């Protein structure tokens, strides 16, 4: 851990020194952005013990180089490099939680993982604006979700209002010696670094991670503002050796699945069509080729009553899908469908209100009320949750006041509550302050003893100095105090330091 921290600081120092020494010679612009977050809080098991102490220290360091292309014009070719490194440590972990020989061992727990969030070279608007590319660890955001891979992407934009995108590489997965996280893998499977584990340790829920080839393409509209349409495809392949069954086979051994297998393969399509004096239609659909099912769709219709008022309706469907290695794909029966109506009113540029209400519907195969007496899976049954939100925001010249309230009630219980938060700047923004009051009430229908009413407040503040030629900088602290009968009093402290240097 100390070694990793030292390594991070050394990298940062080297970057800073390098920048300083090349200040006069370079033509490109350099941006260094660093964040330091320290969080202190405790988690108590619902059974009273264990008590988990979180002593978290997260540091990110970003290095961006712009205008690597000489003589860059605003609409001309541009070459840049962007990267962000993260150290996410938790000093509250007990050493025995990471010791495979201990009874407290938690598979996959790492005290201070270091990951490269992204690092890529990007070219834009080459060949007269037609060609763009990215090389390195990068994100893809579209109807298939928020995803990351290591590889190359090329974008060809034509003057015929169409753009073609293709990419290939390896999905970012946890447990690889590539400073990566598991955030972007499909769920349902635990993978990690088994280097410190012997063969039989925790075999059922920690697979060895290996590079997972991935590729995809997209065709989308380009150039017009009133329409955007994107068709996209992506496939990810598992190549790791995975234990087939958690149980010993007839020979007393364990069987592994080897070779290339589908991790996920999906098609997505999204569309936005708007007319600025009338309204907009938004929609997307995702088809899971592995499960052979539509896994998501949403459709929204918004009506622009005026420049200040919008009303809309939306329908959203979600069926959980998992990695192709997971059995959980076959436990997901029907998706969840939500329908909501909303209104957004801007009384002025400073004062806005928004409200929504809707229903979330679950469908089961068989009726829970009668199934015990007459089992019939073909008799579908629906349950409903009722949803509502109301929020407002008033922004004045040196601060803001916001209200956010919500209500959800249904078969699983209810949650009602809201926050009032205020932010205010002082001395021309040199100082800032934050105050939040929250009141929530919830009922857990499956475990009524876990129902509670909670009151919390947060007080915070910071300074925003322009020192040492930083382009931006902020040092802040927040204090959070929560009261409910489940935990009694709970405290959380957050300290942050952010700064950006752009030269």
């Amino acid at each position: 851990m100390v070694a990793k921290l030292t390594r991070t600081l050394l990298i940062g120092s080297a970057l800073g020194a390098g920048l300083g020494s090349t200040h006069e010679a370079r033509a490109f612009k350099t941006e260094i952005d660093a964040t330091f977050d320290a969080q202190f809080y405790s988690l108590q098991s619902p059974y009273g013990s264990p008590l988990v102490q979180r002593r978290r220290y997260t540091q990110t360091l970003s290095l961006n180089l712009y205008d690597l292309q000489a003589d860059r014009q605003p609409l001309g070719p541009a070459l840049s490099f962007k990267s962000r490194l993260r150290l996410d440590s938790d000093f509250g972990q007990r050493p025995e939680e990471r010791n495979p020989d201990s009874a407290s061992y938690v598979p996959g727990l790492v005290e201070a993982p270091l990951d490269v969030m992204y690092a890529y070279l990007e070219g834009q608007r080459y060949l007269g604006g037609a060609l763009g590319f990215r090389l390195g660890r990068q994100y893809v955001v579209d109807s298939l979700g928020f995803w990351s891979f290591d590889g190359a992407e090329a974008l060809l934009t034509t003057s015929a209002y169409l753009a073609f995108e293709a990419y290939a590489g390896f999905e970012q997965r946890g447990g690889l010696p590539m400073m990566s996280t598991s955030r972007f893998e499909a769920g349902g499977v635990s993978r990690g670094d088994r280097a410190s584990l012997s063969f039989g340790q925790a075999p059922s829920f920690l697979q060895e991670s290996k590079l997972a080839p991935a590729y995809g393409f997209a065709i989308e509209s380009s150039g017009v503002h009133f329409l955007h349409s994107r068709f996209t495809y992506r496939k990810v392949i598992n190549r790791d050796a995975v234990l087939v069954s958690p149980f010993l086979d007839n020979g007393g051994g364990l069987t592994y699945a080897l070779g290339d297998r589908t991790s996920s393969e999906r098609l997505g399509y999204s569309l936005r069509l708007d007319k600025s004096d009338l309204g907009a239609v938004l929609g997307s659909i995702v088809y899971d080729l592995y499960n052979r099912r539509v896994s998501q769709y949403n459709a929204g219709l918004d009506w622009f009553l005026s420049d200040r008022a919008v009303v809309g309706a939306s329908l959203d469907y979600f069926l959980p899908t998992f990695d192709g290695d997971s059995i959980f794909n076959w436990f997901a029966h029907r998706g969840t469908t939500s329908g909501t109506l909303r209104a957004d009113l801007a009384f002025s540029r400073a004062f806005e209100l928004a409200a929504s209400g809707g229903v979330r519907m679950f469908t089961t195969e068989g009726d829970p009320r009668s199934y015990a007496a007459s089992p019939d899976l073909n008799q579908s049954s629906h349950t409903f949750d009722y949803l509502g939100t109301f929020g407002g925001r008033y922004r004045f010249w040196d601060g803001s006041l916001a209200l956010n309230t919500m209500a959800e009630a249904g078969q699983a219980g209810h949650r009602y509550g809201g926050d009032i938060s205020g932010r205010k700047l002082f001395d021309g923004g040199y100082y800032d302050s934050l105050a939040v009051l929250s009141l929530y009430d919830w009922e857990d229908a499956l475990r009524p003893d876990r129902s509670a009413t909670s009151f919390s407040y947060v007080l915070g503040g910071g300074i925003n100095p322009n020192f040492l030629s930083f382009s931006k900088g902020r040092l802040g602290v927040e204090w959070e105090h929560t009261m409910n009968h489940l935990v009694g009093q709970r405290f959380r402290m957050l300290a942050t330091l952010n700064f950006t240097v752009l030269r």
Partner: protein
Amino acid sequence: MNARAQRESLWLLVFGCTAALCLALCGQSPLARAQTAASASASAGAVPVPSASAEPGIVRLTHGLSPTADGAPIPERDRPPGTLPNDNGPSPAIFPPQELTIRFNHRRHVQDLKLTCTSCHEKAKTSRNSADSLLPEATRCDACHGSDHRNPMQVRAGTQAIGQCAYCHLGYSRSAGNRVAPLSLPKPNLRFDHALHVTRNIGCAQCHGAVENLELATRDQLPRMRACLNCHQAPDPAAGRARSECRTCHLTDPSGMIKVSFASGPLEPPSWFHDAGHGPDWIERHKAVAGNDSRFCANCHTEKSCTDCHDGRVRPRRIHPNDWLSMHPVAAQQNQQKCASCHRDQSFCLTCHQRLGVTMSGPFANLAERGRFHPPKSEWTDGPRTPRHHAWEAERNISACVSCHVERDCAICHATAAMGGRGPGFPAGPGQGTDPHPIGFRSRCASALRQNARPCLVCHTPDDPNLLDCR
């Protein structure tokens, strides 16, 4: 104190704190109130109106003080193209508030005196930069008004009423050192090449509306983005045409991102633009817009805007309010699918749940303290399937199950006996031989088996007749 009294005290405390917070935050300083009022006035395009004639002997002047003679709203037909009713003027982030201290009647000059726009604003034909001042020099007025502005330090008034300083300069007072109030026309925060647009035969009215029908031209006659988009609809490679890229007109910072923070306010997309109004409910709505066109978002936002929540390490309070740790089990039971947009169940959720001892699998040391998380076994696991049976919850919200359970927990019962489970063939009570697959699964299973047989083989032996049916 009993529980009810405690709860009442809590409510009283909550309301007291809420009221105190509101009072503290709403009570702005006098300076803040003054600046807010000035800003509001300027953004609405209002101009100072002299309360009375500044000098004895000069008649009260009523024209040229506002767009219409009677102060009525500007007719919609005279406003710039792209204007929406009651749109409150153009964005102050793009066109900062102005301070107009000149009385000027465009209608009189154009309709009655037959001047054209370029008679006074001739620099518009050659201007390449939005920061250029396109107002006429004051000497331009001298020929008709009889004044002499050649030496700004020694301006001479004309002999007639129209040549007097107070005729045009609001608030002028000879007794105040012959000074006039400064005119404030901040440069717009955008790129604009008037000359290029003139060469494309784009007339003044195509962007500024029918100024010739108005008296004073205010901020409200400045262009609206909706009108720009009538032409700016060309993709990048369409060289020479009006490109749709945001940076064509909007200022960028050194990183190439659109500048969104200005002294006159933040730049945010209007609700009609890509349906991306950043109102109070934007955090709930942004998925549909960003999922459809993330490159549009990337004009203003870096990856950090996404990762702070979607791969974040500090709880975003707008999404997870205070005391989320206590509340999140109910939220997950209600709609765990939402969690998956930022959290991976079998790493983020499971690891913490194992540390806290609320899972079946995980540290053995935690087993001693562990109570029963779910309803009693007789309802939750055993048959018959009553409404509180786990099967319904699993059907309804399998993602919530996966945040605590590994597949072994399910396979123990649902795997076939030949694989070591208690599934079909195991002489147990009802429920344990239940087929967990959804209706219609058999029609899809061949494809799944071909692409990845591993999950099938967790519960079925290779020679299982059910598996053979899928081949």
